[in-house]
């Protein structure tokens, strides 16, 4: 079978890619997608540890993470729509009202 460390390396790679994408991209929607990628990387690590220790707790946690991510996506996309309605832009650098 596949060693657990492979999955952990994949998880680390995906997390770093999500972080870099979040910092590089300028529009709110793609940044939000990068956050989802980071959540998925954490899920892979959870499932890998659960499988290597033959316990189901990790899978339960991933189930809850996916459910919370669905709720978070609904609210986050509503906020993005609201920002677009008010400012007519979805670039994060244009929403700099609190910049000193």
């Amino acid at each position, binding site marked *: 079978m596949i060693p657990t460390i492979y999955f952990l390396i994949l998880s680390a790679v995906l997390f770093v890619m999500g972080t870099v994408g979040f910092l590089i991209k300028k529009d709110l929607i793609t940044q939000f997608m990068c956050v989802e990628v980071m959540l998925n990387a954490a899920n892979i690590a959870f499932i*890998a540890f659960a499988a290597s220790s033959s316990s189901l707790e990790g899978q339960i946690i991933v189930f809850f993470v996916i459910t919370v991510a669905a709720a978070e996506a609904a609210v986050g996309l509503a906020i993005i729509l609201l920002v677009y309605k008010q400012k007519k832009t979805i670039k994060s650098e244009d929403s700099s009202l609190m910049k000193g």
Partner: protein
Amino acid sequence: MAVFLFALLSITCIGSITGMILCKNQAYCALFLILAFICTGGLFGLMNAPFIAVVQIIIYAGAIMVLFIFVIMMIDIRQGLTPEKKRWIVYPSLGIGLILVIELIFVLNRIQDLSGTNVSETVGSPKILGKILFTKYLYPFEITSVLIIAALVGAIVLVKEKDNK
């Protein structure tokens, strides 16, 4: 065979996320992300988590990404994206990514004792998972349902048109 599947799925996943970061069009970004989520579901299946694999494909690649695509359809991208101002932010963010890579390499080195163990064969079948979910984890499960109701109401209230009387 399993190693070959793992290589195929992980390379497709990493490739499609690279495409998502490099692509300019949000709709294509969403499609790349759907491909990445389906690959992640396959990886969960490889790790003997069939229920989570199916939930990943139905909820993540299905429901959440449909939400994203609806929002992308509602927003006028050409109007919403003003021309580029400055690109200097790329270099510091790549630096931060490099720091994160080094940190994660340290962390992966610390868990040496796991490197010998393999992904076990015990199947996390939906039956056992459901039993645990509705007995030991019943309370978090109910709280999650309340959370989803709150998120639903919150999303509706946020985007509702205010009637100016």
